[in-house]
């Protein structure tokens, strides 16, 4: 067990190190850098000005030096300076994280309270009209682009309510903020709820076929008790897994939704930073996302090990 843990942690570190190299190199393959953009935004064509800015930002130094400087700083907790705002990258990133985290949390909440019960119903009433209907709805959830859903919601709310649920002013209270975020969260959460529902359904079906369920039934437990107490508890393990993974992968959905609803979160900031070639921001954000994904995967594995005694990690 101890050896396994050590190995896992080392692998995680290796993955993150690999990611740092990959993102660092990939960013530098992007045509144009911040010096090009700054000069271009002023419509200047003088290469001297560009060289001056590149020198100021250390972009003219060997790429290996640049990498060492970044990674060295990162290890010490120094994320460097954002190119565009010229403020410490940490100050730019940190205040945006809670906004995205709240949005993601809310989306996850929606997707679980929708996905799990509907999945159970669908499984219990397999092949009924309700099952078909729910399966179609969940598949459509996986098929609608979330930005389109967002646009439709915006259109509808202006049409019918004459208001627009976008983030224009800092919400006054926590409740206000949650209300404001709930609409975009629903747009993102719809997709994950579909995923969770499908998984719950198939995992429930598998469990319902197991022997011990038959045993429970034969012992005279009521149908409802069997379905919701015995089966659901056992079906939940893979569901917990997918919820964990979804949490990290929600970032993808957040990118477009934050753009549509004008939410100043970290996901939209990433797109913005990519377009501006703001290396310090992109690099650090990507590392943050990768870190979250890797840690969540690890936690999910650990949870599995703790919850399911059949799984043993020998090597």
């Amino acid at each position, binding site marked *: 067990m101890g050896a396994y843990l050590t190995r896992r942690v080392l692998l995680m570190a290796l993955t993150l190190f690999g990611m740092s190299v990959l993102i660092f190199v990939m960013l530098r393959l992007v045509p144009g850098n911040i010096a090009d953009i*700054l000069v271009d935004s002023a419509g200047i064509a003088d290469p001297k000005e560009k060289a001056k800015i590149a020198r100021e930002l250390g972009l003219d130094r060997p790429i290996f030096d640049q990498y060492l400087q970044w990674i060295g700083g990162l290890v010490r907790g120094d994320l460097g300076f954002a190119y565009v705002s010229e403020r410490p990258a940490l100050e730019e990133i940190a205040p945006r994280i809670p906004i995205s985290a709240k949005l993601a949390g809310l989306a996850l909440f929606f997707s679980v309270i929708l996905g799990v019960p509907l999945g159970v119903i669908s499984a219990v009433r397999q092949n009924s009209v309700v099952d078909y209907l729910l399966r179609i709805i969940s598949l459509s959830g996986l098929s609608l682009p979330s930005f389109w859903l967002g646009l439709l919601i915006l259109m509808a709310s202006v049409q019918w309510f004459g208001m627009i649920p976008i983030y224009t002013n800092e919400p006054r209270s926590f409740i206000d903020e949650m209300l404001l975020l709930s609409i975009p969260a629903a747009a993102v959460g719809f997709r994950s709820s579909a995923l969770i529902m499908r998984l719950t359904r198939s995992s429930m079906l598998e469990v319902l076929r197991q022997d011990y369920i038959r045993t429970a039934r034969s012992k005279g437990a009521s149908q409802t008790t069997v379905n919701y107490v015995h089966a659901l508890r056992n079906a939940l393990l893979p569901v917990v897994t997918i919820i964990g993974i979804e949490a990290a992968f929600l970032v993808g959905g957040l990118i477009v939704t934050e753009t549509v609803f004008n939410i100043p979160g970290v996901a*939209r900031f990433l797109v913005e930073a990519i377009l501006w070639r703001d290396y310090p921001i992109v690099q650090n954000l990507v590392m943050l996302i990768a870190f979250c994904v890797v840690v969540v995967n690890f936690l999910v594995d650990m949870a599995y090990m703790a919850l399911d005694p059949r799984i043993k990690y020998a090597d």
Partner: protein
Amino acid sequence: MRKRLATIAGGLVAAVALSAPAFAQKQGGTLRVSHRDNPPSASIHEEATISVNMPFMGVFNNLVFFDPKEKINSPDKIVPELAESWSWNDDKTKLTFKLREGVKWHDGKPFTSKDVKCTWDALRGDEKQEIIRKNPRKVWYKNVKEITTNGDNEVTFTLERQQPSFMSMLAAGYSPVYPCHVEARVMRSKPIGTGPFKVADFKRNEAIKLVRNPDYWRKGRPYLDAIEFKIVPNRSTRVLGFVAGEFDLTFDSDITFPLLKDVKDQKKDAICEARPTNVHSNLLVNRDAPPFDNPRLREALVYSLDRSPFSDILAQGNDLRGATMLPPPAGVWGMTQDELQKLPGFGPDIEKNREVARGIMKELGYGPDKPLKIKVATRNIAIYRDPAVILIDQLKQIYIDGELEPIDTTIWYNKIQQKNYQVGMNLTGAGLDDPDGVFYENFYSTSDRNYTAYKNPEIDKMIDEQSAETDVAKRKVLVSKIEQALLKDAARPPITHGVANTCWAPAVKNLVLQHNSIYNGWRLEDVWLDK
């Protein structure tokens, strides 16, 4: 004595007239404005976009500026700001400003003549000055020989030769006075000025917040307590926000004509004013590489354009036809529609023009079965791509088969400068409606913003010549000549001058939009809210 009395009486009348509406003016309130994108920085001198000017002009003052009550910026409507008065020497090469006393920067330091010298030394390219990093309008001040101070409150600009436009350039929104003691990095993020508003906060993707400067030198100004520019990159979201009452004022020229009706329908009391955007679309033609190194082929391009569809599609027919200078009535220097008709490719009979173009094409061996295949490069953003798509459609008429090549916006000027294109669709903005501003910036061989690297000694000479001409009528003739020469040379043949609307809620009072430059007139110290 009688004369003096009359003057006093006149002064009184004027004073009463001016102060009369002041009774109704209200102090306080926050003006909420939508903003279309993240400004590249807050430093006006380093940038060339309305995204910077509109929110940050209120932070600064100029030496002199175009009368903010006038809709048209013209050289005879320049009023004092940080300079109390000015005088020229006899041969009009020395301009001396008397500076306002007791003015303080937002950080409490006194404003002096050294700040003026510092700012314009930096703009002339003095690398020792650390108040700016980039300098897009260096060419505006190429005629300045030296700047001298005389005590804290007097500064003199010495010019190489006389230049009637010099005052206009000092009066533009692009010419604020910067403090000597603040470094460029701060000016880009939280600038210090002497203006009516202080920068409270500049958060990317969120907002720019300005607050009233309580120590502003002009007593009783500004009226507003604060101005908040909300950054909303999606235009429909911005429009929805305005319609829903989240904003009092739209971003400058944000309401295009196709959107205007919608805004008017949804918000009946909205006040919308249409005015030229000071941006005109034009063609870039690479004269140094085949096929357009052939002047005949360039000529065919000039004759191929039908300007109406551009205007019809992009602005429901409201865009203006003009050459490089903004046409009248808003433009002070542009050619009249009658004069324009005589320019190549501007004639009313499009079919006849295109016949000329097709003739040239056939002569060069192209035809309906053997079209010339080219790539039309443009910046990969909608306002550039839309006219490019129309252009490609039109080029089919003269046997040119164009394919759109969208260039990442970060490497656009780079690519143009390296001559790595055949034909490009471009937009050119004019910071100032003035031939010196426009011609020097875009066509003079040594200009930093002449990104097409257009070099024509003939044109350089003509630009210098008009620049020194003091007689306005004579100068206009010289300007027209330059326009013709440029067009003949297919140097950025102009397509249309954009026109768009800026809208505000009726509670916003005293807002005067300047019609020949969107980049001027955003001091906002006289604006008040009737709420």
